[in-house]
């Protein structure tokens, strides 16, 4: 039987290996968010920068035909694009500037709610400090040392850049007759078996068999049969479909 090592009463949990950030909702549900790291955010910013360059280039070419009026409009546009591009996209497009959309990111408040005008304005105004003294130096340092990868603007505005949720597809379980486990399963064991059954499609055949064979002895079956046994138990747990 598998043993889960119980922690002594008041031991503090070791920080988890992954970077998930939990938001507790008023309903008492822990929602995991996945903060995005420096690299992917830098890429998103690079895309946005390029896009802004293209927009400005095109606009200036068009405005050049308008003469004086164009020059005035041009500097207003330069202002809007350089200071408001991010804010407008973040607020009006569910926290996603085109670069972030491309990289599968979005900006939210610390409590997981969509970003609003004041927070977005703040985090983008303070970008100026993140860029000091050159090339996002302070921002990168702050991002690297923070557990949820916040740059200074995010710290002040209370915002978070997270990976967007991707739509899930229902995993197909192999068609085996449902079985009952030889012994009572604990909750973690039950979830581990279901997890194996649902995710074995992502593994190679050999690796899936290897993982399953670890459990051959406690399940009291031979090693080659362990995988079928696990799938059977998972079927049994899920119930008739």
């Amino acid at each position, binding site marked *: 039987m598998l043993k889960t090592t119980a922690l002594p009463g008041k031991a503090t949990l070791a920080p988890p290996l992954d970077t998930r950030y939990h938001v507790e909702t008023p309903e*008492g549900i822990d929602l995991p968010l996945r903060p995005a790291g420096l690299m992917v955010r830098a890429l998103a910013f690079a895309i946005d920068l390029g896009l802004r360059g293209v927009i400005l280039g095109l606009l200036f070419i068009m405005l050049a035909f308008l003469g004086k009026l164009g020059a005035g409009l041009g500097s207003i546009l330069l202002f809007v694009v350089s200071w408001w591009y991010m804010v407008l996209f973040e607020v009006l497009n569910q926290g996603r500037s085109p670069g972030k959309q491309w990289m599968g990111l979005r900006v939210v408040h610390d409590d997981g709610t969509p970003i609003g005008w004041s927070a977005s*304005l703040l985090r983008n*105004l303070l970008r100026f400090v993140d860029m000091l003294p050159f090339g996002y130096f302070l921002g990168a340092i702050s991002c690297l040392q923070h557990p949820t990868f916040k740059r200074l603007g995010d710290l*002040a505005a209370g915002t978070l850049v997270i990976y967007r949720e991707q739509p899930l597809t229902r995993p197909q379980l192999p068609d085996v007759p449902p079985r009952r486990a030889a012994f009572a399963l604990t909750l973690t064991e039950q979830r581990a078996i279901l997890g194996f059954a649902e995710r074995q499609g992502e593994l190679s055949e050999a690796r899936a068999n290897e993982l399953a064979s670890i459990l051959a002895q406690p399940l009291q079956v031979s090693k080659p049969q362990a995988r079928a046994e696990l799938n059977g138990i*998972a079927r049994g747990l899920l*119930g*008739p479909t």
Partner: protein
Amino acid sequence: MKQSLFESRHQAEWEQFALMLGRLERGKDASGIASFPNDYRRICHHLALARERGYSSFLIDSLQQQVLRGHQQLYRHRSRLGANVLSFILADFPRLVREQWRFVLAASLIFFGSLIGFALLVYLFPELIYNLIPAEQVSEMQSMYDPAAGHLGRLADRAASEDWVMFGYYIMHNIGIAFQTFASGLLFGLGSAFFLFYNGLMIGAVAGHLTHIGYGQTFWSFVIGHGAFELSAIALAGAAGLQLGWALIAPGRLPRAEALQLAARKSVLLICGVMLFLLIAAFIEAYWSSRTGLTPLTKYLVGAALWCLVATYLLFAGRTRHAPE
């Protein structure tokens, strides 16, 4: 209860909820929205059950996604800026300025102190200007405000049709400076203090120099009108920045991160007011200050009136309890 039974029992409900979420996210006004909080809490309930009963990760993850989306719709922050612009202009902004009077005072002292100080210094010791500002810029400034040129503002040969150009330029340039002054306050207030001092120095030095060489009339009559809004806006932006810095230096009983967030929430409102001021300033600068047909006396009078207006606005607007609502 087996997972498949649980799923088949509630599947229809979840699909309904997903449809409603989709409608809300696209911003359409959804029918049956009254039941949304109830439905949302039911989904939360299902998620808790699914976790507790050890159902499979696929089910838990998809419920989690729905709960997250529902949470984002139900608990989204209502923006205070967009909804009540009028009451912000009429009362909230001047109230905020008065509430933060310590920072406003400090920023004004730095900015106007350095402005007046350097203006006097340069006026008394004219050679000093060449230590402060590069010589080409000085001569550029001189040609702008040369009384003989007959035109005012950035370009000596500008015509009325260029007002529009300058309007854009002023917006771009001045709001950029204000944003910089504000944002650099995050560096423990040092950045804001520096920009306040530096901008005060530049403006003061130019003013002192131009007055000394006898271009005072053209210069002062040009700047007095929009200066009321522009200079006070820079000082207010600096005050917002100092407020950020102070939250880091002396967070009080809160952790620094919390104190910073609280201060930031207030300072961003100040910045919105500053932007408004600078828009007005750019408008005045482009369309009123640059007019040349008027006597300097008119401009001084209008300028003084504008200064009084700004001071009255910041000091007295929104004092009465129910005034703007």
